[in-house]
């Protein structure tokens, strides 16, 4: 038995929900089919250390926030998985499994390795796609909350027209605040630069495109500068 009362299973095992493919701090992700379609089931489990009423409310809120963000992004033209069914009793989200895809994280690594360049043309064009996507998302007041290159997918075969698919809206929210958008970008910057060496230029392209495509970008980017000033080992003067 897991601490939350769920049947014990380890990654790779199949239970009645499906095959467990990931276990996070908040949710388990299973792979299954739904009406024959390859599907991901994201199940938020109970946190026994919380008061049950509070836990139920919070989990429900997180689930609704996640699906609301997905729909909101879709409406503005951003590629996201299709949500098929939300089970509010067991806090499971059944959504499209984007098969035959690579994460942007793996793609960047493989492009740099293959071309032996730090700024291949393919990555510049990818950066533009990401910048445009983030601009659209923020202009619609959606904060992703966990922007990393592992949460962006590219369907194979990857070419100049492949859109970036944004996934994992588990920490998302709706906000018009420049601060929140700035922090959203900062999270991506930290994740990007720490995961992918020598990509400062590529990330800069993302921001340049963001500035061009977003209507409120200058305020947000100003906030990004401020947020960069905060944090560990940083002087709060000036």
């Amino acid at each position, binding site marked *: 038995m897991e601490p939350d009362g769920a049947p014990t299973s380890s990654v790779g095992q199949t239970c009645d929900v499906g095959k467990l493919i990931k276990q996070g701090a908040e949710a388990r992700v299973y792979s299954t*089919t739904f*009406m024959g379609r390859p599907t991901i089931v994201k199940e938020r489990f109970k946190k026994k250390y919380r008061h049950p009423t509070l836990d139920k409310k919070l989990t429900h809120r997180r689930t609704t*926030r996640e699906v609301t963000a997905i729909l909101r992004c879709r*409406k503005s033209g951003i*590629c996201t998985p*299709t949500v*098929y*069914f939300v089970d509010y009793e067991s806090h499971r989200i059944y959504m*499209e499994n984007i098969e035959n895809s690579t994460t942007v994280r793996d793609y960047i690594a493989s492009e740099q390795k293959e071309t032996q360049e730090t700024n291949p043309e393919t990555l510049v064009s990818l950066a533009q796609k990401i910048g445009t996507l983030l601009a659209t998302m923020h202009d619609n007041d959606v904060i992703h909350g966990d922007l990393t290159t592992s949460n962006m997918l590219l369907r194979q075969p990857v070419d100049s027209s492949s859109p970036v698919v944004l996934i994992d809206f588990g920490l998302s929210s709706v906000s018009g605040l420049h601060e929140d958008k700035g922090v959203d970008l900062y999270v991506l910057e930290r994740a990007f630069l720490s995961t992918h060496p020598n990509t400062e230029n590529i990330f800069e392209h993302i921001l340049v495109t963001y500035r061009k495509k977003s209507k409120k970008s200058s305020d947000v980017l100003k906030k990004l500068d401020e947020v960069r000033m905060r944090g560990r080992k940083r002087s709060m003067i000036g």
Partner: protein
Amino acid sequence: MASQSYELELFPNCKVTLALFDGVENCQDLKRCIMEGKVDAALLNVSMIIEPFQVLVSANKAFHVQQHGKMKTRNINSEILFNLSPTNNISESFKRFGVSNEDKSLLAVVLNDSNGEKLQRLTEQVEGTRIDMNQLKDFTDEAKIKKVYKIQDTELTNSTLLDAVICRMATKDAS
């Protein structure tokens, strides 16, 4: 195929049968019969349906809420109509997704019809011809679907119409 049956992975003992009728002369009567509880099926406006998957997603949710005693409408058949709608207005969902008096075609959804009796009974009630399910797409009215589900072309640059519809159906009660 004259009718198609599906099993839902999440509800293995539940069967969903779809049948398409054309040349229907008595939609007005059928509507009255539904109100009087004499029809054990959901009769859908075919023009609002893109593919059987859309109906199955609705049926899946209907079984789920029925199991948990959380149906919003009177019975599971009306719940299927309600789940197709992008809004939470029940009467609007019946109006938009159910058959109208002047309709000449309809898509019937029969649940748990293990021996085909329910569909047989329904076929007797419908004054029309059962046609092949493959002809469903001939009735689909994409422009009307976009209007009712409020789908803009921006969304369709990177998504199919079906996915846009399914996502709205699935997320409509997130609040």
